[in-house]
């Protein structure tokens, strides 16, 4: 069973905090949200795949099974880990709250 901590979609202030400092440390309220987002099943979990070491990463989803490769999401490529964290935060925000994150 995944974490049940609710994410209040009106708390865009916390989302802004994350976007400003995606690598943390985070405020306690934001960390609760981030923990909720990171506590997912292994199968389908978003991960980053090294495309060029220390320079370029692609988004992928784990298979959750030994010997079964991850699934690359070819259109999602990042040149900074911070941008990757921001992108996945948006994906998970929408997944959990049901509505897209309405901030720039």
């Amino acid at each position, binding site marked *: 069973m995944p974490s049940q901590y609710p994410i209040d979609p009106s708390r865009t202030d916390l989302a802004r905090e994350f976007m400003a400092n995606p690598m943390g440390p985070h405020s306690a309220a934001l960390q609760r949200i981030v923990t909720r987002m990171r506590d997912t099943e292994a199968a389908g979990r978003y991960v980053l795949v090294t495309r060029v*070491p220390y320079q370029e990463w692609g988004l992928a989803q784990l298979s959750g099974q030994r010997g079964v490769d991850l699934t690359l999401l070819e259109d999602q490529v990042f040149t900074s880990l911070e941008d990757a964290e921001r992108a996945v935060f948006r994906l998970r925000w929408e997944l959990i709250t049901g509505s897209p994150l309405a901030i720039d």
Partner: protein
Amino acid sequence: MLEKKIAGYSDEISVAPGERIRFMVSCEPGIDRYQADIVRLISGDRQPGGPGYRDELLPTSVSGEYPGRTQETYCGSYAVVPDGPAFGSLDDLTLQATIFPTLPGLRRACLISRMDVDAGRGFALWTDPEHGLVLELGDGAGGLHEYALGQPLVAREWYLVSATYDSAGGEVHLRQQLLDSYARDSSSGAASFTGEAAAVVACDAPLLIAAASREEARGKPIGEMIFNGRIERPVVASRVLELGEIEALRGGAVPPALRSDICGAWDFAQAIETDDIIDISPNGAHGRLINLPIRAVRGSNWTGDELSFRHAPEQYAAIHFVDDSLYDCEWDVDFELEVPADTPSGLYAARLTAGDQEDHITFVVRPPRELSARSNRSELSERSVPGDRATASLALLIPTASYMAYGNSRGGMETGNELLSNHLTVISPEMRYLNRHPEYANSMYDDHNDGTGVCYSSRLRPLINIRPTHPWLWQLSADMHLVEWLEAQEIPFDVITDEDMHHDGVSLLERYACVMTGSHPEYYSTQMWDALHAFTQRGGRLMYMGGNGFYWRVAYRDDKPGAMEMRRTEDGSRSWASEPGEYYMAFTGEYGGLWWRAGRTPQSLVGNGFIAQGFDHCSYFRRTSDSHDPRAAFIFDGVDDEIIGDFGLIGGGAAGLELDSASRAYGTPPHALTVATSEQHTDAYIRVNEDIGHMLLSIGGQDDPQVHADMVFFETPRGGAVFSTGSIAWVSSLFHNDHDNNVSRITRNVLDRFLDPTPLE
């Protein structure tokens, strides 16, 4: 996108000048040739702002191009009983065993087999996901006929299973009986078949337990269709046994009346510390285990009254087989090095390169041995080593036991570890490569395919993450920060390993004024612990350069070089837990788990011990009042800062990842000085569970004052001393500002003093 395609391993981890080391390499298709060179490793971390990778070529005959080839690896554990007279003239047959299947629904898996598939002769007893017990018999004409009981087995329950064949009437009887008692059990049952097909059960083939085989490789049958789970007291009889006789044979002895009818009855309660399986029938059809199945596990009759297999071996008559264990890849040798006589001691690698591909098979050249090349391990242990000599006053003790424990960790790719790091997991080409190669087996942090924790490791296989350049800065790749610093300081040092210390004892250490550990020497055998402790008590100086050291107890086996055992018992920060009653290590009979539980705390050895871990950010140390004690003055010579190590290549600080604190209650010497303490750890840092009584809300770094590292110094008898950093991340702060920083200065101050023979008093 970069894909890893080449990897190898060596037969030795530590060799002296004049000794030989062999290298085995496997390339994926597309790598037709590769270049190999022997290099001395100087630096490994390629991250931006890091020291980069550097090595120094050792001119040897190894340098050259080699053909790339793919070498097969056969993982999974089973037993082989060589073909022999015991099975020569079988007409009728009984097969039986008590079994505990752990993955009965995965696929068909073999319990006992002796089969010549081409000739259609022999027998095999299987578990089948849909049909439960299945007996397969050869028809003597190239075909096989099978008989299925028809009821699936339940996972993780004990069953007595049996199959009989009566050649006179062609009668087959199958039975599987749940040993526990459940209402509505539908998994027990029996089935009989008459006259379906004539069978020829005799054949020329070895008998296998927990596997079937169709072909041989490297001098033994390749195990296929390996059974996951426990098998206890398997029996092969040359006539149809009655149920009462089958029940009697479950009991652990061959009743006198049955002696002439039993071809083999294997009592796994015997020789638990070995790879042997003992046949207690008069035939003596003993066998050998392949790929380290788990021994010293509970049998079906375990009562819980005794917790050690040595106290009640008859309750430990089971072996747990798994389809993904591995002892030795047994690859063909690609090239071999005779270490030149004048080779300086150091950390070396066989560097393999092919286009954008590389691998570093890392090994140690220890200081010279005044012996000719050793021929085997047993000879090594008998030879005293007084003729050996140090070539420096400092020894860097490479924690190879911990490298083996973490080797081929699959967590990043299988679970993501995101809640540990509090960041997205980055999957490197090395991790994807490892995931493509389940046959390279697992780390001691992983589960076997059936969910059982991995309690054995081996270095006779590629250990993909134990590489100087691995992007996960952990163990070897993090220890390279220390090597880089020592090189930059131009301090002469010898390199020795855990295995050297295990075999040679304190005599190896006593040649040095100072011994320096790696960043995370977590796994220690009794011999290693004794040697290091004796060194500190005989005037030696120890610099413990990391965190969470001396935590888990491990065991080696003299007849199994390169293998190591560990049990994750009662408590401790751990990825799996041993089953009750399975806390004693099969290799030695020693109680496994935390050294604390064996009465030897890390605090008593080095002044501090594991207290908390977190993997998002690293913090810093602040000097304490103890740091101004005159006894500690040498440590802070030239350091005016109150804050120590608020920088670093891992997490931005010297205090992080895994933290050790001082504790009088846990055995920190009463005179020890805590010269610095870390602070301001994030909530991703959580106190170790063995130190938590009641669970409280305040367990994270921001709330729990216990979540901190203590840097400790204390003197030991005869002028010796111990300095302990208390943090894995410490060594990764040495490089900052071209080594001109307070972490580097403190480390250098301590090292200079520890190399000075003037006693510390």
